[in-house]
């Protein structure tokens, strides 16, 4: 069975694409066949984060319009051989997508034996975001610990519960997971940032992962390497945990508390 997972948030800039790339890598490294699709038509980013921007010949829109085959458009990752990327078109707009076309591509990927299809949603609640979530079985709602992001995520959760195929067919709805990104335990401690518990309580959902705020994310993006592959980074370990939890493993949350300074460090004020 192919599981379709949408990575969405409503708000822009919270880390949807970073999450899509890292979760896709994490799943693929565990031996799953994974395709990750960029639904952000016109603002193509996923290929940059995945480091395959120079290998994009055909894209998602070409496939939907029948200008190439799906095989021609799928880009195989150079690091993990069970991972494939379907890039967005940079020259078109979101109107180039349609329900029938998206459905056909997803069905073809499922028939091809992919275990997971990750749909990297654009920001907003318009057509692109709607199509990214419409066929999903599961959703990763990416949220930053601040009020506007939480509000937008609440809106997205409402749409997931009403405007998806599973919701319409009454098949028990989409399984929803919350992923907190850019989490800074220090700022939570000083009351500047909402805590995991605050966000959980407002959205009424369990947390599949908490990704600490780190400069590693930016440098990984610039290098075209999904941050999960930077093994030394806390971010990588946090994403690795999240992937485990997605697959049903019970892993306690890490990096949600400020590391205690050692006695000596406190003494010398460093």
């Amino acid at each position, binding site marked *: 069975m192919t599981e379709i997972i949408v990575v969405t948030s409503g708000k822009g800039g919270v880390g949807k694409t970073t999450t899509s790339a890292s979760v896709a890598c994490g799943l693929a490294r565990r031996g799953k066949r994974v395709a990750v699709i960029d639904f952000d038509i016109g603002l193509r980013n996923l290929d940059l984060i995945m480091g395959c921007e120079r290998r994009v010949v055909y894209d998602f829109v070409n496939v939907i319009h029948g200008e190439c085959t799906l095989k021609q458009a799928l880009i195989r990752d150079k690091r993990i051989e069970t991972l494939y990327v379907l890039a967005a078109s940079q020259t078109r707009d979101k109107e180039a997508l349609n329900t029938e076309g998206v459905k056909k591509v997803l069905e073809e990927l499922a028939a091809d034996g992919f275990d997971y299809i990750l749909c990297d949603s654009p920001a907003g609640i318009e057509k692109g975001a709607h199509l990214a979530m419409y066929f999903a079985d599961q959703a990763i709602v990416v949220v930053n610990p601040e009020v506007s992001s939480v*509000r*937008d995520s*609440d*809106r997205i*959760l*409402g*749409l997931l*519960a*009403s405007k998806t195929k599973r919701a319409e067919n009454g098949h028990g709805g989409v399984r929803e997971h919350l992923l907190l990104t850019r989490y800074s335990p220090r700022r939570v401690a000083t009351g500047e940032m909402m805590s995991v518990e605050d966000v959980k*309580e*407002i*959205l*009424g959902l369990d947390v599949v992962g908490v990704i600490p705020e780190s400069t590693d994310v930016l440098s990984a993006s610039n290098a075209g390497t999904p941050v999960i592959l930077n093994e030394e980074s806390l971010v990588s370990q946090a994403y690795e945990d999240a992937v485990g939890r997605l697959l049903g493993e019970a892993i306690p949350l890490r990096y949600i508390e400020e590391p205690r300074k050692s006695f000596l460090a406190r003494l010398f004020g460093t």
Partner: protein
Amino acid sequence: MQSLFARSRRTGTLRGFAVARHSARAERSEGLKQFPMSRAAEANESSDVALEIRFGPLDLAQVRIRTLDPGAILDELTGRVATAPRFFDRTAVGLDLTQLEQEPRPEEVRGVADAIRRAGMLPVGLVNGPPYIEALARALDLPVLAQFRAPSKPPPVLQAVAASPTPTEPESPALLHTQPVRSGQRLYARDKDLIVTAAVGAGAEVMADGCVHVYGALRGRAMAGAHGDTAARVFCREFRAELVSIAGVFRVFETLPKELAGQPVQAWLEENDLRLASIA
């Protein structure tokens, strides 16, 4: 039309009249069905039908006018609109002229309507009342709107039902919603209470013609007595609401009162005043 609208209110206050309620429902659903269906059938035959007419209840706010001075009305309204601009923006309203001490002249009503329009709302008709309303409506070329309140005498449909005891499905007295109501979602329990066993998010709206019960945090808007039932109440386990309204009397919470924030709270109407109190 009169009985159609009257029904909505009756259910809140006169629950005992279950028979009357069902009959009114049956009558309405027939009324709803017949006309549009025959139209729809035609539409299927030729898709170039110029229009379709449908009957159904619409939510409509009423402005009860107590003075004919447009200046005073505009002052009062601008103040209220400022507290919740989006709530009132281009809201359709019916003018209720029945509380005026004397019969207004058409030009006076026109002045009042202009004042309301300047405040951002759109007067669409006159609320039904004494016979002079009909004459006024004609003079102003406005429709007369059936009033959303119980008629003083019991509706005639009561006997009609007693004569034909058709078994009706026992109707659930409340709409139960167990999922969180998310930002941007609206939930409306027509003719009944609404029970939400999860949280109502900020920017979400829960409405009922009867009472609203929220067994989670209420962060959005709650409106009880949406069709004018002043006995309806709002209950919630954790009060963080943006707006609470009962029978159109509402309060916006720009800042939450300290003694109520996060508390179990109920809201009710007392002499047209919205009261809130902790029920902890």
